[in-house]
């Protein structure tokens, strides 16, 4: 019997809560994230002989350090190391929603994209090639309609499949020559000075250049 822990992520109003209920049914627990008054929900289910634990992350648009919700989401992914992140994406607002997905990939997370509300997207005549999206981002993409409980089984199959594979993805965004030079430079200095860190050096370098308060504190703390 194997166990898989997934973090359920997504923008607010993408049907994330509905998806959480579809996945976990009545087996839900509610508590608080440590140290903050943000609600934490988790639950579990069995699928294909796997025990799947689902942790519901706060709904966020981004992974900056500006709001406690965003810090909770990225801290959980890095420090608790769930086996994968399932990002619920509003298919009708694909561009904006992928901003979060891209940031999970930069963070080095193993990701599944649940292309949700595909019915709404279809009613607006948005045609989405899920397979091509999967190729371009290098992650599995599953079509779902959470409020009609469609695609839930496919998503669970995908979770089990990915759970067995190794994370060999090396996702990176090209920030352009000038910025890349500074990232590389900082990355090397970080690698030389910090022996063990949960966060990838490239990600730390990018976040330092974005003047992320929390990452600055993390780096200081390693003195």
């Amino acid at each position: 019997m194997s166990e898989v822990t997934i973090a359920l992520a997504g923008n607010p109003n993408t049907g994330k809560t509905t998806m959480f209920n579809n996945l976990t049914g009545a087996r839900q627990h509610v508590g608080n994230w440590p140290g903050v008054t943000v609600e934490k929900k988790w639950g579990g289910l069995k699928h294909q002989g796997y025990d799947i634990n689902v942790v519901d992350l706060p709904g966020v648009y981004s992974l900056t350090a500006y709001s406690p919700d965003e810090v909770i989401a990225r801290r959980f992914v890095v420090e608790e190391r769930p086996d994968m992140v399932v990002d619920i994406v509003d298919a009708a607002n694909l561009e904006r929603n992928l901003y979060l997905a891209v940031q999970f990939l930069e963070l080095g997370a193993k990701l599944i994209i649940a292309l949700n509300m595909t019915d709404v997207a279809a009613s607006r005549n948005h045609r989405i090639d899920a397979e091509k999206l999967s190729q371009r981002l290098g992650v599995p993409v599953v079509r779902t309609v959470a409020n009609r409980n469609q695609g839930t089984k496919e998503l669970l199959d995908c979770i089990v499949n990915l759970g067995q594979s190794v994370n060999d993805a090396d996702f990176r965004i090209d920030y352009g020559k000038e910025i890349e030079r500074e990232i590389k430079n900082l990355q090397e200095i970080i690698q030389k000075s910090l022996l063990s860190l949960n966060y990838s050096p490239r990600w730390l370098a990018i976040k330092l250049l974005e003047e992320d308060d929390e990452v600055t504190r993390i780096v200081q703390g390693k003195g």
Partner: protein
Amino acid sequence: MSPEDILHSKDEALARLRASFGEDLDTVFAGRRYGFISDALREVLVKPKKEKVTWTERIDRVVLNRFLGIPIFLALMWIIFQFVTPAMGGASMFTIAGYFMDWIDEGFGWLGGQVGVGGWGGALLTDGIIGGVGSVIIFIPSIFILFFFISLLEDSGYMARVAFVMDRALRRVGLHGRSAVPMLLGFGCNIPAIMATRTIESKRDRMTTILVNPFMSCGARLPIYLMLVPTFFAAYQGTVIFGLYVIGVLVAVGAAWLLRSTLFRGPPAPFVMELPPYRLPRFTEALVHMWERGKWFLVRAGTLIFAVVILIWALDYTGALESIGRAIDVLFSPCGFGQWQPAVGLITAVLAKEAVVGTFGAIFAGAEEVGGLGFIINFELGWDSLTAFSFMLFTLLMVPCVASLGVIQRETNSWRWMLFALGFTLGVAWIGSTLVFQIGSLFI
């Protein structure tokens, strides 16, 4: 290599990047990410050339318009205040509040007639409780009507738009839309409004939003306005009250600018907000929301206001009230109301704003038979419209009540900031009222 080396190299790198990309590096990084996404979506997503325009988008084009947004909000609020005030002289479409007031008035009048005891017990019942508590309760329907309309605006999705529109204005003073929500909540009660600032992550933004919130005119101020406008601004009741609300917002925004450029300097945090689609608000739902917000004023009338009024009546009965008032009334002479009755009223206002009305009600017992409290204040204290306006302005700007001071203390976790809020609002109130009265006196 130490952490300091890393941070040092980071600062050097930032300096180099700023030289080529400008100050706003955040947007450069975000831009590259969006660039990557739109690149990846080129063969993935096909959208119709012309998107179907939804009703929400159509309404938003008007409501969120750069120039129309704020005027539309102001117009809506103006209309709402016409409903809140009892119309003078005959029927009007805005007389809802008037009906309720008449019923309550008759009810208390009948109650007063039933009191058969004489002596001090009878005086306590008729003058203190019926005169004092009754004068507050009579204005509670107006509070409910205001809250009903605010609930309609919220349930329809419009209030989120107001926050969005205010975001643009607040940005100029260094705040953003996340501060707009607590400010709008302040129209109901400053206490939940101040607690709502917990969603603001930046300490500077949060402190500023907390400290300016008392300037937002809460529901408890409404009875004071309603006590005075029928007599002193008969033809423009709703407009004058609307004006006071607008002044409250303007003072809050001005104070935010002042705090943000002195005590809490720094750039505002970025802010994303999603606008929900519009929906038709449900009547019963709005009634429930109205009740949840408004019931505290009923509870308070029976508890805190009740106790304050009895105390005031007892002090008045023994003559002590006048001496207390006279000890401080000179402070308010520059504001135009250096008399012991309003001075005592302002002391009770610190306990609860609507207690001002209860205090006047207990002091001028039986006012309802001779044309209402406003009329008696005009007759006995010799106030004119300018004095009345100056007094309303003072009660608007002075610190809301002890309960909200307690919340400020708890949320800032500091007695010093609480005392600052007390001193700051009292100072602004005194200066504001003095300016209005002194400058106004030159013209009248």
